């Protein structure tokens, strides 16, 4: 039997302590307190009050939800315009021309893969613009193909991923990285969409989850495609998993002499994917469990094999700030657009 000696509500969790403090201040000021919190306070019951506070504290104002949706719209627009440029269907002829070299190398079957993925990204932007953002009283920001620089050069057109416009291996690596960034970004934002008892928030959250898993499907397919072209690179799992963390998890072994900027970007995109410690909250306390050292994993193999499996078994989130740091290079600096 495993005994976990994890600290509860310890350092990993500054957020909840912050929100608890904020909430306490609100209570002191006489702000409205939910009946459960009030009941918990009245009963002097710490677990009841803590549980209720945590739920209250995480409640999001519509503006926070709108912020998530508008952020998602920018990421989806980036993805959509990227694939359109790759396929030569962008409204921006310069971007179509930029990818002409690599386009000629894409097989008919891989073209079909890209078209299917692009269709989904278009559907995601349409849904966010036409349904989700208006639901919260907002308007989707205006982004066009010209606002992006898919070389990662912040508008120079000469960034660290320039080779993706001429070499298929690079292109597929960028596509995989873009999809995995999408998966991690949605995962990181899901909690901001969680508002129990708000029907509109349910729409936003469930839609985000359903888009999130589609991005994971895309990433898995591209990984399998890359593996089929690099059969010896076992980092590119046939199962579509992210194996390990950091730049090694990109499976970029087939890329000779990658630019330092690309290595750095991939390090950010896959940073922390090797985490095996995850938090669960039981209404009273948050506990961290290390998935690599659980009992019952013996059939997997030795400790190293168990850790590898534990790293693959959980996809990790990225914070909004982390995502912004990754995508900043793909946005033209002179566009008049600022990332939120």
């Amino acid at each position: 039997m495993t005994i976990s000696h994890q600290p509860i509500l310890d350092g990993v969790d500054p957020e909840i302590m912050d929100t608890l403090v904020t909430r306490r201040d609100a209570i002191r000021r006489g702000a409205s307190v939910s009946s459960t919190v009030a009941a918990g306070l009245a009963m002097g019951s710490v677990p009841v009050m803590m549980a209720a506070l945590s739920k209250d504290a995480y409640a999001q104002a519509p503006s926070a939800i709108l912020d998530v949706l508008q952020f998602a719209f920018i990421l989806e627009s980036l993805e959509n315009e990227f694939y359109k440029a790759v396929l030569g269907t962008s409204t921006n002829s310069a971007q179509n021309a930029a990818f002409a070299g690599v386009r000629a190398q894409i097989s008919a079957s891989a073209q079909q893969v890209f078209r299917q993925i692009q269709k989904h990204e278009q559907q995601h932007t349409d849904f966010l613009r036409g349904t989700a953002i208006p639901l919260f009283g907002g308007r989707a920001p205006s982004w066009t193909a010209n606002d992006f620089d898919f070389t990662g050069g912040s508008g120079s057109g000469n960034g660290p991923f320039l080779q993706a416009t001429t070499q298929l291996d690079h292109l597929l690596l960028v596509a995989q990285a873009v999809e995995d960034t999408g998966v991690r970004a949605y995962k990181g934002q899901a909690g901001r969409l969680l508002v129990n008892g708000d029907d509109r928030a349910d729409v936003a959250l469930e839609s985000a989850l359903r888009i999130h898993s589609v991005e994971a499907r895309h990433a898995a397919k591209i990984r399998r495609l890359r593996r089929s072209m690099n059969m010896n690179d076992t980092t590119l799992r046939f199962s579509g998993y992210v194996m390990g963390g950091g730049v090694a998890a990109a499976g970029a072994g087939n890329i000779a002499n990658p630019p330092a900027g690309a290595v750095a970007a991939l390090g950010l995109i896959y940073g922390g994917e090797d985490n095996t410690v995850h938090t669960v909250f039981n209404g009273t306390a948050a506990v961290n469990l290390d998935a690599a050292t659980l009992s019952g994993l013996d059939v997997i193999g030795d400790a190293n094999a168990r850790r590898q499996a534990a790293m693959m078994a959980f996809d990790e989130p990225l914070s909004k700030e982390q995502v912004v740091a990754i995508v900043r290079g793909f946005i033209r600096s002179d566009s008049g657009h600022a990332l939120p």
Partner: protein
Amino acid sequence: MAKNTQNSADALVVADADELMRPTTRRNFVRVMGAGGAVVLLPGVFSACSMTPGMGATGTGATAMDGGALTFDLRSDIGIFRLVHTLEQLEAAFYTAVVGSASFGTFFNAGERELFTDLRNVEIVHREFVRTALGSQAVPDVTGSINTTTLNAILSSRDGILGAARLFEHLGVSGLNGAGKYLQDARNLLLAGKFVSVEARHAAALRDLAPPSGQSANTAFAGDDIIDMNGMDVKLEAGAALDRVAATNLVRNGAVSSRNISNAPTATQGKASANFFPTTP
């Protein structure tokens, strides 16, 4: 990574959260928390919740599934993770049987065996993680309730294995996509999110390897039958997901079905939406 805070002046060690309800322990809890300290809970995580309204757990840990005692109270995060635990158990048991079957080496080539072994390993990690988190609220071992006639029929052909695997992965994706809105804590939602994208990777890989009838080999990974007009993936409410488990007849006597749901989520947790799931995922 886990820090051992035993015997530290600012840590409180409790065997279960009920201890927190006892006056002496509770005073210590308040003192420790006030000092920015830690509480150490042994050993199950979710077993703590039975005293918390809205987090009420049902089901006792020791009963067999055939006994009809397996229940899911979806008014709590515990109940939802019990459901997840059930699915993860079935998946892990299924892939363990696949990888261990006599025909594994003949039905599948090296790359396919790599895939199935990864799936087995990852589902075992999921199963053990949720079991550990649930502690005394964990779902009883399901392996004794598996219908071996059904399992052997599935294992007797490559297509049978691939079809069942696709179904299970899609039940995982759709169930988690449907349940997320009912979770009450953002950290538990994040945990569910960490699971669901991994299940989606499985689902895509399996469909890519073996597209269902009528699906293009190049688009099956996210085909038009499983992704709707808004670019959204499958989703099922819990009862529908469980009934599809029952329909596989992989668990004896329909021991896992929507009748296991003792309480649906409340309206304040979330609003049910239309299911989206193909006949043959």
